[in-house]
């Protein structure tokens, strides 16, 4: 049986130590299996978050060889033979221990978003053509890999001013819900700070659910913000048509 060297970043909030482990490889093995092997054989207290091991719950996010990914979806045979595998926790959030980070900031942002609010007199008929667009956003498993990779958070630490791609995905899903009647554009612009996003698409590149975050959520929201705040013609049109949403 072949073996692979796995280096795991261990430690707490402000210490970091890389430890090396030799792990035997079985066919189809993923990085999370290697971590479990390490737990069972070398480091019983190695902290890692996971639930489904089927890429469905978004718990096991980490940075594997510098690439933000789900550990349960990163196959060992995708690496070069002999390549060392280095596993770090997400870098945009404070570490609790080992591979586990404190992602509670995301839950705080989420609370500020106005939830689904049905239109008055909604008929509760919806059509697949409308579902097709919004269901993409509902695929999000809240792995927060996009939040982790977004440079507005990662490098510029705009945690106060910016909601991050995950929440633009949620906002897009709500704004484009055929029966939703709430208006979240002021929030999108001023509090979620969509203007901070410079559409450089790193979020889209890491999304394990292949949500086209930038093209289908962020840019359409930016366009809606333009409609409301920057486009003199639509402004004029709204005044004449008396439609002020």
């Amino acid at each position, binding site marked *: 049986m072949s073996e692979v060297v796995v280096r795991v970043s261990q430690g*707490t909030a402000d210490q970091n130590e890389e430890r090396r482990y030799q792990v035997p490889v*079985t*066919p*189809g*093995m*993923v990085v999370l*299996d290697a971590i479990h092997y390490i*737990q*069972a*054989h070398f480091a*019983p*207290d*190695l*902290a*890692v*978050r*996971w*639930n*489904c*091991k*089927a*890429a*469905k*719950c*978004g*718990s096991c996010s980490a940075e594997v060889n510098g690439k933000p990914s789900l550990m349960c*979806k990163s*196959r060992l045979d995708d690496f070069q033979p002999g390549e060392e595998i280095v596993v770090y926790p997400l870098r945009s959030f404070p570490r*609790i*221990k*080992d591979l*586990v980070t*404190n*992602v*509670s900031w995301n*839950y705080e942002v*989420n*609370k500020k978003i106005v*939830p*689904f609010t*049905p239109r008055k007199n909604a008929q*509760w*008929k*919806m*059509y*697949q053509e409308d*579902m097709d667009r*919004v*269901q993409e956003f*509902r*695929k999000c*498993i*809240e792995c927060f890999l996009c939040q982790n990779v977004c440079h507005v958070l990662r490098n510029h630490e705009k945690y106060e001013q910016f909601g991050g791609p995950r929440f633009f995905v949620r906002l897009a899903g*709500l704004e484009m*819900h055929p029966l*939703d009647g709430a208006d979240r554009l002021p929030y999108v612009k001023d509090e979620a700070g969509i203007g901070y996003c410079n559409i450089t698409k790193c979020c889209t590149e890491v999304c394990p659910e292949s949500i086209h975050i930038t093209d289908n959520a962020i840019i359409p929201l930016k366009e809606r913000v333009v409609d409301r705040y920057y486009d003199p013609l639509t402004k004029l049109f709204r005044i004449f048509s008396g439609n002020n949403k």
Partner: protein
Amino acid sequence: MESYETHEHDVLVIGAGGAGLRATVEAAVQGVSVGVVCKSLLGKAHTVMAEGGVAAAMANVDEADCWQTHFKDTMAGGKMLNNWRMAQLHAQQSPERVYELERWGALFDRTADGKILQRAFGGHTHNRLAHVGDRTGLELIRTMQDRVVQQGVPVYMECTITHLLKDGDRVSGAVGYWRDTGRFVVFKAKAIVLATGGVGKSFKVTSNSWEYTSDGIGMAFKSGAELIDMEFLQFHPTGMVWPPGVKGLLVTEAVRGEGGLLRNNKGERFMEKYDPKRMELSTRDLVARSIYTEVKEGRGSEHGGVFLDVSHLPAETVIKKLPSMYHQFKDLADVDITKGPMEVGPTTHYMMGGVRVDADTGQTTVPGLFAAGEVGGGMHGANRLGGNSLSDLLVFGKLTGEAAAQFAKKSSKLRVREEDIKAGIEEMLAPLARTSGPSPYEIHEKLQELMQSYVGIMRTEQDLKHAIEQLQTLKQEAQRVRVTGSRMYNPGWHLAYDLKTMLNTSEAIARCALQRTESRGAHTRLDHPATSPEWGKVNSTVNQDGDGMRVGTSPLPQMPEELRQLFEEPVAAAKK
């Protein structure tokens, strides 16, 4: 002694899966103070993994469908061992519960005329499963999660409850620890709802996550609640069998619902032999046993499974209707399911048994303690139909949340006893204090091997006796486990406690299985292959007996006449 923090609520919900969240929403609506605790992050509970759909007789696709047929299907699937009242409430109320989700923002797949689309599933007479591609559970969880956040209910995430506290014979609170810091926390509550899910982690091949260590069943049992039907553990017929890392991972029944075919290594659609009428869409117990038999008799695939094939369907349909299956096989097994077959075999999936509850209120036999979802027993009898779990969560989540809130409103302030808290905390700390002893991982592995080999899909007296005996040894070993490291996010430490619960539940499963000398639904005894009418009249029961457990039976609640008649006349007549 150890310090701890305290929180107080009228209703404490333990578990933030479908059942827990639905109960939370309902209790909050009743205007009482609610708190919800879960041991992973919010939104990661097992329910997110549910794929195929939620069963509700909405009759959007098949106009002939009605609650009576759903009720009959459920009872027939459960081999008539279900609690009839639960099955009735479930069939009657699930459509409204699904529509409600839509009002809260859920987005189901649609029919051409704008209604909720429903798909076929094993054991359901009509197309009945409302779904969102193959990620229905995610939609449920997100919708209710947003609802709970909107209601402003405090959510205690990554907090594991280990002990229930009582005041006299009533439940009055709970002790737990924060996973991140390892610090203890005490909740005082007038009513507690258990919604902690199932037991799969005691088995080696399972579709269940690490959370399924049967905590709720264990805590209820220890506080004196009765368990029922613990021998009925569902083995889902189609789990992945290759590669080894993903063995057991679920292949949703929706694959068969959308037209997937089962074949053995000779290319025969072997279900013809076992259930020529329903074929692939037979009930899970039967399909699982058929696959087991095919493999056992040498007609299996290379890795010990059979073939499940959707490659005759148009590739776009497969990708559209089964996107996560498509990716699961592509990413994890290098199989393109639009081109070739999947290899599948049975996997431990769902606990039909659990804590005995009152059908209308979800109250257990301990006053103030309620249970909903997979942790509860009775609703599904000897075998659960696919899609009936998600609807179970919604229907009984609501009823239980409501009843718990009403119960709390009527209760005066309760006491929690300091010595109980202290005992709980000390039990938790013991493994950290030991300087030698086995590792919890080691015992867990042994337990999984044992249950898989001896209490699996085909059972015999000899195997079960062996298992029970071995479990005693493991229990003793578990008393000596040693944990290293600090209390901060220490999975070894967490497992050390979960292990005790799992061992206890495993014993209950094995003992009930030994007691029931017949084959029925998911419980198959090779030494008692026939279904016995006598055993059809009783539920198995498990109660605490000092430090041990007492297994017995109790008579099945009797169905009223008008429901019994449904099984005689064709349903069309019943539907006015």
